[in-house]
């Protein structure tokens, strides 16, 4: 930059004079300053200034987020798709007159799967459980649909079960058979294995519900009522006023009715536990059964989900911390402005 640009022509002479007479440091000061030697720098010195630290931390956090998502994606992606969730554990109580004591087990279990029937849940041996299975199988053509429907009905009878409902329809080139079957629970695994082999298994859902506790509770209540009935009968055998006798007889009748209802409920529960309900849907269609997602696809999907979750958390953190950061930033800017103004006033006074 030339001097003419720097200063207006009017001030040219003034500027020349100021420059010509510029103060010079004394020899003593020169000697003092030349004695200063900066400390030798370490070979690998990290400069942790704020301007460098912020992007470094940002990059590190981003790398960590992607790394965590990748690791979780790989871990989850390689895990099998079969999931079973135990919801509760029953506390088994057995009393006189009830069914034999059995070990406690899962009160209910849920499984959803698109894998082969070999993975299907089995009912716990020795416990009363309601077993519901839903199968969806794709068969090649209408002829196969008809053949497999008949086979399913025959197999159900052969295993000691029965058909609750059957619906068969084959319009045009498509077709569907919906069978609702009751199969003895000890043969349900065989039935499911057979049904799954009729074609491509599209979906399989099995629900297990523990009935043991309910049956045991009913047994306890029946036992109490029977004891009470025995007591009433004993009292009726003695001498009573007509009013007392009438009241006791009414109570006796009521208790007998209740015992009967409870016995029916218990029998119903036991019956439900003895026969599994299998809903089998067979369909014909051009679309092949969707293959389970590959490991790589699952890894990518899981990693994407984790990244999305991390993004959600980041947005949440920003929403929560944003106002505080804004206030802090505004405070810092205001502080800097105040300090600069104070410095300027100080220099104007000096």
């Amino acid at each position: 930059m030339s001097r003419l640009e720097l200063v207006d022509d009017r001030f040219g002479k003034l500027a020349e004079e100021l420059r010509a007479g510029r103060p010079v440091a004394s020899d003593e000061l020169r000697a003092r300053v030349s004695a200063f030697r900066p400390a030798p720098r370490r070979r690998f010195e990290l400069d942790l200034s704020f301007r460098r630290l912020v992007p470094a931390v940002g990059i590190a956090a981003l790398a960590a987020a992607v790394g965590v998502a990748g690791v979780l994606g790989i871990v989850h992606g390689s895990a099998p798709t079969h999931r079973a969730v135990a919801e509760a554990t029953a506390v088994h109580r057995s009393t006189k007159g009830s069914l034999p004591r059995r070990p406690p087990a899962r009160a209910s279990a849920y499984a959803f799967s698109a894998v082969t029937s070999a993975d299907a849940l089995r009912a716990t041996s020795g416990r009363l459980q309601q077993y519901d299975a839903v199968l969806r199988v794709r068969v090649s053509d209408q002829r196969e649909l008809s053949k497999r429907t008949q086979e399913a009905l025959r197999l159900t009878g052969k295993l000691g079960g029965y058909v609750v409902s059957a619906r068969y329809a084959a319009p045009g080139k498509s077709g569907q058979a919906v069978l609702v079957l009751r199969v003895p629970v000890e043969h349900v695994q065989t039935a499911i294995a057979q049904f799954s082999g009729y074609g491509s298994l599209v979906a399989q859902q099995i629900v297990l519900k523990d009935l043991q506790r309910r049956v045991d509770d009913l047994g306890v209540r029946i036992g109490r009522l029977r004891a009470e009935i025995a007591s009433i009968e004993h009292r009726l055998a003695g001498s009573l006023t007509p009013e007392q006798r009438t009241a006791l007889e009414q109570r006796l009748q009521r208790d007998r009715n209740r015992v009967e209802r409870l016995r029916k409920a218990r029998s119903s529960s036991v019956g439900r536990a003895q026969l599994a309900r299998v809903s089998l849907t067979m369909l014909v269609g051009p679309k092949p059964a969707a293959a389970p997602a590959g490991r790589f696809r699952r890894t990518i999907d899981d990693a994407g989900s984790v990244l999305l979750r991390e993004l959600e958390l980041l947005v949440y953190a920003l929403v929560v911390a944003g106002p505080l950061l804004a206030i802090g930033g505004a405070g810092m800017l205001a502080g800097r402005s105040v300090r600069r103004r104070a410095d300027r006033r100080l220099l104007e006074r000096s």
Partner: protein
Amino acid sequence: MSPLRRISAVKPGARDFAEAAERHLDDVHAFLVYLTGDRNVAEELTSETFARACERWGRYDPRRGSARTWLCQLARSTALDHFRAEDRRRRREGRYALDVREPEDAVFGEGLSPALEGALARLSAAEREVLVLRVVLELDGESAARVLGISATACSTRLSRALQKLEREVSAGVAA
């Protein structure tokens, strides 16, 4: 090249500091003379500025400005600390009015006319600092603005006002 090595590569060494100190000592000294209006104080502050610069030389990044600009920033910060300390001392001792020094001869340079010397003495430190940076040290507008911590436009405005006032003061001094 790793980030560590890259950072190390741009970091100035001890020899660079000695060179920078030798090259810019007069600039820093002149800046502080104008800022304080006192040669003795300016010498002390210059010494202190270079002591600080020596300590912080590892933090100096040539990519963010010249050594002269960085040293002037340090000098200004040192001078402000001095002014604050003086301000506190004056308030504490309550003798601000008694502490007004008699103007020395040739504070702001050798060979200046008495009118100009007097006019400079009557300017505030804020006015003198922009004058010395832009006129005496001939820093460009951006560098001077960086030293002062203001925008280049504000720096230009301050310079213009300071020169006008200086001219008025010189004229008044000559007339007197």
